[in-house]
């Protein structure tokens, strides 16, 4: 008797999934056999991995190709693919930022990607970000940029220019309403760039085809110097405190001790958690922030490049998946349909602030810029040198480093 029950159970265990499978396969498409020889391996960070895990399972069910998601730290993906890719052990698809391209394309680690007609489904700035040397190397999913934040309890409307920021800061501080009108991180050039561009400054000049020209360093042009002098004035008049780090300046804004800051979508969670009243506005003076684009890239050592491309264009580039990625990551999507489907005034405000934004230079020469440029901003904020001197030195350092190597 016992044996009979056992046999029945085994039979049921075999037949039930078989019937279930038969039912699932019934519609139009042919039955699919999972081919274990062809697999897609995707490297993603902990924010994106669960979403990809889900769509990977769908893909396997529909197309018979197993999809493996491996979770790595966002920044580790770049370092690891450079070693694992050439050794034949890397992923087929990686998640990454567009400013890795100089390194990854230059070393032959990622392959060009052909989105075909779907290219027009993405915002032009996100496609421009992933274009390197005239070829597209990634399918973007999110764009991030800085915007201007102010506390409406202290500031009635967003300042139009950085001069106005100074006036508002002065009057607020003189009235004793806040401790500081405007706060920023001490040595950080990334958040300074919108101020620099507002005055007509730039980092690298742009060629006629839209690529960056490493021979044209604009850190000491008239506009950049003017911006540096503005910063110097704010520091000497006591309207910007020195020695503030990233965490501190957010805390100052959150606690109502500061009225205005510049920050990005990554800070929204903590601002909301603090309960501070804030508005997001365009950067004063028409300042252009750097655009950071995140997307999917295909390893040039993948045996399945065409499959990887098909997975991305047919399966990931859908409004639903892009909205999932938005829900988890909190960055405005690069897919136009997904962007339009979002009803979040904050995302719209970021989009507005980044409308004129410039893709962060992906050319390898950019690595020569960060430390010299950051040092210059630090020295101004520590009142060691004038703005003009600091930025002239930085430009010389950048030129010497690029020429010396």
């Amino acid at each position, binding site marked *: 008797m016992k044996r009979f029950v056992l046999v029945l159970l085994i039979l049921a265990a075999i037949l039930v999934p078989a019937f279930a499978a038969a039912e699932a396969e019934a519609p139009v*498409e042919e039955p699919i056999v999972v081919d274990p020889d062809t697999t897609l391996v995707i490297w993603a960070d902990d924010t994106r991995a669960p979403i990809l895990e889900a769509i990977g399972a769908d893909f396997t069910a529909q197309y018979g190709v197993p999809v493996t998601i491996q979770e790595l730290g966002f920044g580790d993906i770049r370092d690891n693919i450079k070693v694992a890719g050439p050794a034949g052990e890397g992923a087929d698809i990686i998640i990454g930022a567009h400013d890795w391209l100089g390194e990854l394309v*230059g070393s032959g680690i990622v392959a060009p990607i052909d989105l075909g007609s779907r290219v027009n489904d993405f915002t032009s700035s996100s496609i421009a970000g992933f274009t390197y040397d005239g070829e597209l190397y990634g399918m973007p999913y999110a764009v991030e940029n800085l915007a201007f934040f102010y506390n409406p309890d202290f500031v009635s409307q967003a300042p139009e220019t950085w001069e106005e920021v100074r006036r508002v800061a002065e009057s607020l501080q003189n009235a004793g309403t806040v401790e500081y009108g405007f706060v920023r991180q001490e040595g950080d050039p990334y958040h300074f760039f919108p101020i620099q561009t507002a005055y007509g400054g730039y980092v690298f000049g742009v060629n006629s085809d839209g690529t960056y020209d490493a021979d044209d360093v604009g850190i000491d042009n008239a506009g950049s110097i003017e911006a540096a002098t503005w910063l110097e004035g704010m520091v000497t008049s006591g309207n910007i405190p020195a020695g503030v780090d990233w965490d501190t300046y957010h805390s100052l804004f959150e606690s109502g001790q500061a009225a205005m800051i510049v920050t990005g979508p990554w800070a929204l969670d903590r601002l909301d958690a603090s309960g501070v009243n804030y508005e997001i506005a365009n950067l004063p003076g028409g300042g252009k922030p750097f655009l950071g684009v995140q997307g999917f890239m295909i390893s040039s050592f993948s045996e399945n490049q*065409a499959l990887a491309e098909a997975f991305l264009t*047919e399966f990931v580039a859908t409004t639903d998946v892009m909205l999932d990625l938005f829900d988890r990551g909190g960055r405005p999507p690069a897919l136009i349909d997904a962007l339009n489907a979002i009803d979040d005034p904050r995302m719209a405000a970021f989009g507005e602030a980044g409308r004129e934004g410039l893709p962060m230079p992906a050319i390898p020469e950019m690595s020569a810029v960060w430390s010299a440029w950051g040092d210059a901003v630090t020295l101004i904020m520590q009142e060691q040198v004038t703005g003009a001197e600091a930025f002239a030195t930085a430009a010389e350092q950048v030129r010497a480093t690029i020429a*010396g190597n």
Partner: protein
Amino acid sequence: MQTEGAPAPSSLPGGPKPSHPFFSLKPVRLLIRFGMLAILDAFSLLFIWTLIANGRYPLAAFVFVITVGVNIAFLVEKAYPFRWFAPGLALMILMLVYPTAYTLYVAFTNYGDGNLLTRVQVIDQIESRTFAPEGATEYSWTAFRSNSDPDEYVLWIQTEGESFLAEVGEELTTLDNASSAIRGSLDASGIPTDVPGFTRLAPNQIFAILDALTEITFGEEPNTVTVDSVRVARRLEQRYLFDSVADTFTDQRTGVVYTPVQGTFTADDGSTLSPGYWVPVGGENFRRLFRSPSLRGPFIRVLIWTFAFAVFSVLLTFSVGLFFAMVFDHPNMPAKNVLRSLVLIPYALPAFITANIWRGMFLPQFGVISTTLENLFGSSPLWLADPTWAKVGILIIQTWLGFPYMMIICTGALQSLPSDIFEAATIDGAGPLRKFWNLTLPLLLVSVGPLLIASFAFNFNNFTLIDIYAEGGPPIVGTLTPAGHTDILITYVFRLAFSGGRGADFGYASAITMVIFLILATITALQFRFTRIWEEISENV
């Protein structure tokens, strides 16, 4: 030298023991020895084979040399003494000699971003690039798999009103010329459901075979068609043709010829094919280092602070460590063991974490040290922004991090000092200070001296602390290359090598490492000279 059967000298521990009274152990021991050796050789061979397969020839050569060495040591009776330090030697070759030799080798190559791949990989990659000739038609496609050979396919390709059957090596068949079976079975979108001998693949079946399909050229020259993506098939031509005799690539579209120059295929006008490959470049990295603006820039300042930092770190950690060691060594000290354990805490915690905590305490706005000083005295030094105070801050942290280690070694050394000479000194009327300067310290330095040199060498390259504290900052005003007041040699050149406009440049970084290694080796050699002076003192005491 030991011959089998001769009586074993008792001085060699573990040497052949006298035979067992009832049966000889010799064959058993031989069997074990050969067995172990065979297992080791098997693993080595497997390892070497894998390494060669991956193109890692230098490491394979080293493993081979080690394996041969171990075999000689255990098989040749004359090499008997080597058996005792064979494992140590093997590990030393693998962990010290090989990395050093490899770094030296890399220093003479252009290995780094832009030249990460091997020549074979680069030629493969450039050869695989294709382009669609101008005016090439884009087709949508449907694949059919052969019923007899699962690797054989035909395509049905369509473009505005035109349809073709594309077979490998045959001219494209127009719809009019196609067999009646095909013509009779067209579905609503104009795709035949029946190609004799073949089975039509559904859209969901083509994904798994997509990359196999892209490898196949359908049709006959010059009217060929290749699957380009899941939606498009078109004529694709190879972009760059490699001429293995001339060692050049020719661009099929423009006719430009690229010849290799230091690992990069370069045209006459200077344009290059990316990526480049990894190739020896002679002394180029060293030339670049000695010509680079970094040497004309703040190099001397950085070098002076590097020495100052290393010397002060050793002096301060040693003085504080010795002080605590002597305090805890005092017979009247209460709760010695508890206190000693507590004082060891800085040594037990990872420096990476504690250095960050210290940095936080030094921060101007919220740091506990800064705010306390401000409350007490009305102002606090700018620990991270002021050049002098930043250096003081770093030395304070390093002293706190390093003194427990010095305390441990001093405690050990103090306890091994002979007590008779101290008694003699007391009888001669020497006070405690006199005894410390003339007896304790010189005797201590004999045993501790080499460790102080090691500590000096460690701090000379103490990247972690410097980088965590202020990333070398605050910046020096008006230098030729970016440099900070607290930058030591290793952080300064690290930034140069990895932010010098090309991303990570391992060849250049290795060259710099070699130069720092030479500087450090020279200093250490000189210091060992000096320690001999202490030894002479100890002989005269």
